[in-house]
């Protein structure tokens, strides 16, 4: 290992310029598309008027932030957002890991490949398309209810019930994403030293023991990394999905920050308000990502960045 490191270091110093050049497009891209538009954040502190632009509009200080706090539904909407986002995060971590481990056990290559392909697919469809599929499956006279009726159960109003709707959001999102998320975990499994498995087999470990003592610890860094990267999304419950599936009847349980602000802000053309919410979300995200990194550093002695 040591020797390899030295070799790389040598090559880097020799071709320093080349490596710097490789980074430049990325930096320029970031500067243009991520940093330059940041001046627009000023909108959050202004009474933004499009014609006057960011530099001509009047500053109003924290007025919009105070208004957000005063919005009558903000507590309920934040609660919905957190519930939906956290549940999605939990299931979107546990399920792909389980799936990756199980898939890894399949030895017949073509079965493995075709299963993989099938479960990836939904990831590439947009919610605009999938929403109509979901609606057809889950509405009152949809396929799922027809099946329930076959078994003598009464129909469930998945799309119109405040108890069922958030769970429908979580369930369908996990269904859409678990296949694709499992790719990373599958890659993590393949990077585990086969020698460890052989040693475990020599010690008489069963399949479940090997998963517990070899596979999972080997995957842990990846799991931690992905979880930390996901934490800032805690206030993103998925605009596309919610917007395409919800209706006023489930506002109470399904309205999330993004959809709420979209209706209150963009439709009413209150741009500053929208920006203010976006800024709050970003700041919370930033705090969370540093926080979780620190937490992992302290408790598990690992640093992600």
């Amino acid at each position: 290992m040591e020797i390899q490191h030295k070799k790389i270091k040598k090559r880097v110093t020799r071709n320093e310029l080349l490596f710097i050049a490789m980074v430049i497009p990325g930096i320029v891209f970031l500067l243009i598309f991520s940093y330059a538009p940041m001046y627009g954040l000023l909108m959050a502190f202004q009474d933004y008027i499009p014609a006057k632009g960011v530099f001509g509009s009047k500053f109003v200080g924290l007025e919009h932030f105070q208004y957000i706090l005063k919005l009558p539904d903000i507590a309920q909407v934040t609660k919905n957002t957190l519930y939906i986002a956290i549940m999605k995060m939990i299931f979107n971590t546990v399920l792909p890991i389980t799936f990756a481990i199980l898939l890894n056990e399949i030895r017949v290559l073509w079965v493995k490949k075709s299963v993989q392909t099938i479960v990836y697919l939904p990831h590439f469809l947009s919610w605009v398309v999938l929403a109509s599929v979901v609606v057809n499956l889950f509405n009152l006279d949809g396929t799922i209810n027809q099946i329930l009726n076959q078994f003598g159960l009464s129909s469930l109003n998945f799309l119109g019930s405040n108890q069922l709707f958030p769970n429908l959001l979580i369930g369908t999102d996990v269904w859409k994403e678990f296949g694709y998320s499992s790719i990373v975990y599958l890659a993590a499994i393949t990077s585990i030293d086969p020698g460890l498995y052989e040693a475990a087999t020599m010690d008489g470990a069963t399949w479940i023991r090997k998963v517990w003592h070899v596979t999972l610890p080997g995957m842990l860094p990846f799991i931690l990394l992905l979880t930390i990267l996901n934490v800032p999304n805690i206030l993103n419950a998925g605009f596309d999905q919610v917007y395409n599936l919800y209706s006023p009847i489930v506002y109470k349980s399904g309205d999330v920050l993004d959809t709420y602000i979209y209706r209150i802000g963009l439709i009413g053309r209150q741009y500053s308000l929208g920006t203010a919410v976006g800024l709050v979300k970003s700041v919370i995200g930033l705090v969370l990502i540093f926080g979780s990194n620190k937490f992992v550093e302290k408790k598990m002695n690992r640093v992600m960045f």
Partner: protein
Amino acid sequence: MGKMRKFLIGFVVLSSALLVTGCGGGKETKNAKGDLIVTIGRQTIQNSKLPKGDTYENNAYTKLVEKKLGVELKSTFEANGEDYDRQVSLAIASGDMPDLMVVNSYDELKELVDNDLIEDLTNYYDKNASKNIKEIYESYDSIPLKEATFDDKLMAIPGTSVDDGPGLVWIRKDWLDKLGIKLDADGNGAITLEELKATAKTFVDKNPDNVAKPVGLALNYWLAATGYGNSTFTSSTIMHSFGAFPRYYLADKSGKVYYGSTTNETKKALTYLKSWYDEGLLDPQFGTRTFDDITAMLINGETGIAPGPWHLPGWNLSQVKESNPEADFVPYAIENQNGDGKINATSDKGAGSFIVVKKGFAHPELALKIVNLIYDKVPNSDNIQKEYPDLYKYSQLDVDGTARPFNVEIYDANSGIEDSVQIADAVDGKININDLTKPTDKTLAQSIKKVVDNPKDPDINDWNKYITTYVARAKTMAIPRELGILNEIVPPKFHGIKALEKNGAQLTKLEEETFIKFVTGEESLANFDQFIANWKKQGGSDVLKEMQKVQDSSDK
């Protein structure tokens, strides 16, 4: 290092060049033929009925504009329905507006004016608008022009909205005939709510199209709307029969401003709708259905009742007839619940939408020239068939109004129902078709006569004209007017209410959510007072206060 630097500089220059070209300057651009290229925003519709090969950018109207005015119209954006308003919002927000576009609300217009984004059209109107166009506005006592005027400057060309009379409920006529249901025995064009309910019940029980789950009445979740054309699939017409006018801001006799959704009458109407829901006559999926869902239900024969304006067949029910030629509809108004034998309706004469010209556009007069051409020269031509053969073909094919450069209506205030009655008289042989003064009326009468003379399997476009002009307007809507039983409410005009801009979306959310719960029984109607209190607390009081000031100052 020298090479490196060159590479770096080159890269940065290249990428900034790419960025800059994105936002072009305001220079005049001409096409290969030397015609001026003018950009517009276009509202589209899914079923435009444009002949094959024609597009929104390239059709009989755009070709006419190009031929007569030397202008090529290019779409900056084309969007359907609500999406159009979103595109307009985005265009305003980004400051990247088309040269000409239509905005559908006064608030948008005001925002454009406040931000100095559009041209003052006062002089252009005086100089360029044709005599006929000016007369059209005068027929409304110039109300539309006043609405588009700010500080004595005319900032937009208003589309007009004709006084349309009572809202209608469209019922499957072939089902009524099949099941032997007789409605409107007294022939006043209106039925009672009891009759409507009994009809819905029979439709559900007898299930004439033999579908899996027949539905009596399917409604949009917003339940009620202002503006005549917005009444499609809402309960507005039913609500009005209770003397309830939800979504309207009104003034009582003493001049006190109140909100129609918070009245006792609205509570009664909601209680009544709940009884439909409880009896399974109102769609069990009420609250989650979209507009398209309900259209699909009508097409599939799952429901046979559709509340909506007189022009509903033109762009919606025709789809039902197209997929099921047996389907036929008959419109009714609804009589008041209090038994006074009258029919309540709202009269909202004035501006419907506004044509605006982007600030700095070199040829603002073009907006008026296009309006003159489309709304004066063409309809007042002595012989449309000869002078504008392509447009004549469009009227035969019933091409949707969105094909025009601006999707607005600029028609005489007295046109509407009076014209329709004359057309009907011509069709019925009471007067000669050739005596009709307007050429468009002649073509209408000819198409309608085809259906009246030969009602079996009519051409779908002829049927549209027959059912809207002849059946809905000339009969159902004109009769209550003639009988003097039409009770029209005139809501005061409130514009640019600040509290509404700030709290409007939140208030709408509260109302939509609560009303759905009231109807489905998730929340008891005993909490109606609580709803009013919430509504007031969340900004409603401020809205009313601001409106009261406007009302008080307009009284003096």
